C-alpha cells in the first residue's frame, strides 16, 4: 500500500500580503518574486514528495487574502486535507485574523469534526527585522486553539518552508491512520483519497 501515491490537498489561508503565493512558489519552484500581484481567486500547483516512506502528491492551493475575493475562493475549500493558516510576523493584524480564517475555513469546507482537523500555522516573513508578533504569542495561540504545529518561515530565504509542508503531510497521514483504526470498515468517507480507501479495504 505504501507504494501507491495519494493526492493530498492542502490550502493556504491568511490575510492578503502575508506571502501565501510566495510560500507556494518557493516550495514548488524554488523561486521568489518580490513583485507578485494579488492572487485573484485561487491558484494551485502540484508537488510530488516522499514523507516517511509514503509517496504523496501534494496539491497546494493558494488563495486570495483580500476580502473582496471571498466569493471566488470559498468554493474551493471543500475537500482540503490540511489547512495552513498563514500570517506575517511583521503584521499583527494578520495574526489577530487567524481565528477568522479558521472559522471561514471550517464553515465553507464543511468540516465535520473541526477539533480534529489538521491545521498548521505559519508565521511568514521571518527575514524582516521589525517583528510585530513574537514567537511566544504565536505559539500560545496555537496551543490554545487546538495544539497546532507552528513554523516560522521565510519564503524569501527559504527558511522552514519545506519542513512546514512535510509536517502538514505527516499530520494528514497520521489523521488517516487514526481514522482507519477508529472508523468501522463499513463506512466509506467519500472525500478521502485513494490511499486511505485502499487501506480500508485491506
Amino acid at each position, binding site marked *: 500500500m505504501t507504494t501507491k501515491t495519494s493526492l493530498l490537498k492542502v490550502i493556504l489561508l491568511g490575510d492578503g500580503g502575508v506571502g501565501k503565493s510566495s510560500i507556494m512558489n518557493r516550495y514548488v519552484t524554488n523561486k521568489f518574486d518580490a513583485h507578485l500581484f494579488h492572487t485573484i481567486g485561487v491558484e*494551485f500547483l502540484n508537488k510530488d514528495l516522499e514523507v516517511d516512506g509514503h509517496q504523496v502528491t501534494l496539491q497546494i492551493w493558494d488563495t486570495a487574502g483580500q476580502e473582496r475575493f471571498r466569493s471566488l475562493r470559498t468554493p474551493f475549500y471543500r475537500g482540503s486535507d490540511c489547512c495552513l493558516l498563514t500570517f506575517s510576523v511583521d503584521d499583527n493584524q494578520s495574526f489577530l485574523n487567524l481565528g477568522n480564517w479558521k472559522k471561514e475555513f471550517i464553515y465553507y469546507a464543511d468540516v465535520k469534526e473541526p477539533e480534529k482537523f489538521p491545521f498548521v500555522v505559519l508565521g511568514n516573513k521571518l527575514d524582516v527585522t521589525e517583528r510585530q508578533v513574537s514567537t511566544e504569542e504565536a505559539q500560545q495561540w496555537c496551543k490554545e486553539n487546538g495544539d497546532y504545529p507552528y513554523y516560522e518561515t521565510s519564503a524569501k530565504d527559504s527558511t522552514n518552508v519545506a519542513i512546514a509542508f512535510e509536517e502538514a503531510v505527516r499530520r494528514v497521514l497520521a489523521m488517516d491512520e487514526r481514522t482507519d483504526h477508529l472508523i468501522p470498515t463499513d463506512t466509506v468517507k467519500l472525500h478521502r483519497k485513494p490511499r486511505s480507501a485502499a487501506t480500508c479495504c485491506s
Partner: protein
Amino acid sequence: VSVMAEQSRRCSYFFLYDASKVTGESDPTRDGICYFYPEETPIDKQELLCGQLAGVGRCVSELSSSPVRFLRLHRNKYAIRMKDDFFWALGCSAEVPTISVCELLDQLINIFCFYNGSVRQSYQMNTRETLAARWARYLSNLQSASSELHHIFSSLKTIDSTNVDPLLLLKAALILQACQRCPLVLAGCVLFRGRVLSTQMSPQLTMKVMVHESETYTKSQRPNGPSSSSSLSAVSSTTVFLTLSELQYLQSPPVDKLSRSHSTPQKDAPPKKTRLSRTLSDMASTESDSSDPGPSQRISFSPWLSDSDNSSFSLAPPQIIADPQSPPPQSPVPPLSNGKNSREAEEALKDSFYQSFHSNGDGDGFIHNNGDSSVFEGNSHFSGGEGDGGTACGNVFDLQGAESHDDEAMVGDGGVGCGRAQGRHKAQQRDLAPCSGAFEYPGESPLVPMTLYLHRVKGLVLALLVEPHFLSDTASMEEVYHSSLASLNGLEAHLRTISSGAPGTPGPYIFAHFDCIQSTLTTNLSGGPGGALEHPFVRATSLLHLHFCNTETLQEAIIRSAGAAVYGTRSVAQETYFQQQGGSLRNSGIPNHQDSAFLLPSKARHRLLKHGVNLL
C-alpha cells in the same frame, strides 16, 4: 429549414487555382486546381467553375485595370482574390451579406499564410495533397461551431461574460501581462473551450491563433480524454508567420497603441516595448474596466510613458544608450538627435501613409467620419515606396532593436514596406468600394516567422506569440511556464465550475450587439442552430448589417414582416439589433403613429442597458 441547413454550411464552393500550371493551349484546367471544395465535386464541374470564374475574373480585371473582388453567378456570390498566378474564389448563397463572403475568404487565406507562410513557397515545398488537407481543415474550422450570427459579423467567439466574474477576466489579463515580463514574448491570448477570455492581439490575429488551438484541442480529446499530467507535455509550439504590420503593432508599446485610437497620436512615445510591472495602480486601472473584456487589457499604465511628451522624451535616452546593438552616439547631444530621428521616422511614416491613402482616392472625409482614426491602428499602409517609407521603416526598426533580436531580418523586410491595415474599419471601408481592390490584399505583405507557444490546462489555453529563439532559451521558457502555471490551474478550476451554468432563457426580446473594434458579439440567442422564432431575427440582422455596411450614412433602420419587426442601430464602434418577442404587432399595413414597431428604439434602449449595451 433547408435554408437554415444550407446557411450553417456557409461556404458552398471554394477553390484555389494556379494559372501558372495552365499556360499552353493543351494544358487541362485541372492541372491548375490546387484545391477544390467540396472535394466530392466531379472534376468536370470543378474545371467548369474554375475556368469560368478565373476567365471572367481576368477579363474584368484587365478591362477595368483593377482586380476583381466579387462576382455573382446564378444564386451564388463569389468573393474573388487574385495574387500573381493564384486565383481564389469562395462562393456562398446569395443570402449571405457580401461583406461576410469577402471576409470569409480573406480569413481563410490569412489563416493559410499565418501557418504556412507564402502560398507560392508552400506549394513549392509541399505536395498538393498535404496542402489540400490544410485548406480543408481551415475551412471547416471557420465554418464550425459558431452561430449564424457569428458568421454574419465574422466575429470572434468569446466567452459569455455574463456568466463569468469580471475578476476572472482580470486574472486572465494579468496572466498575459506576467508572461510579457519575458521580453521574448510579444503578446498572447487566453482561451477557454475554444472561446476568447482575454486577448492582447487584434481580433484578426486572435482568430488565426484560435485555429491552431481548436486543432490541438480536438487532438487532445481523442486519446482517452485530456491527460492529467502536470509536466511540460502540456506545452506545444508551432511556427507561424506574421505580416509586417501585425508585427509592428505587437512590438509597439501599449501606450502607443492606445494613442493610435485617439485623433492625435503621441508622436514622441519611444518605440520601445514596455515591461509591465504589476503594481496597485495597474490593478486599479484595469479593474475598473474589467467588466469590459476588450481594450482594458491592452491599456496598461506605464507611468513614465503616460507623462507628458517632454518627460517621456527626456527618459528615452537611457534606453537608446543601453541598447547594445545601436552604435555609440556620435553627436554632442546624442539623446536629442536620437530621439528626433525616431520622431522624424514616424513622421515620415505617416506622411507616406497619407500619400498612399489619398492616392487611393479616398477623401479626408473618411478619416473624420470614423473619428478615432483607426487608420493609424493599421500601421500605415505605405505604397511600396523605396523612398521615404522604406527609410523610415528601417529607422523605426533600428530603434526597436533593443527588444527584438531579429531586427536584421526585419529591416530587410522593412524596405519593401507594404503594411496590411488592421481593424474593423478597414473592412467597412473595403465594403464601400468592394471592387476597388488595391488597398488590402491577403497574403501580400512580407511575412516574418514567429513562434506560437501554447500551454494547455484541460480546456484552458494560454497562447503566446514569441520570438523564434524563445524555444531554445530554456531560462525564458521556464520563467514563462512557472509564472503562469499556478494561475492557469486556478483559472481553469474557476471556469470549470462557472461554465456549467445553463444558457439563459430567451426572454421577451432578442438582441445582438456587435462591437466592431473588438470584433465581439453579445447576444441572448442560444447560439445553436436557431429555432423558428430566431430565424427571422437572424435574417433581418443579416440584411440590416449589409445595409449598414453599404450605406455609411445609415444609422438606424427597422425591418419588418407581417409578424415581426427588427430594429437596428449603429455607430462607428458598434451595431445593435433588437426584436421584441410576443405581443401581436399592430400593423395595418400602412405605417401609422400607433404602429408598435416605432416603440422598438426606446424599448431597445431600456432593455439592453442591463446587458451593458448603451444606446443612449
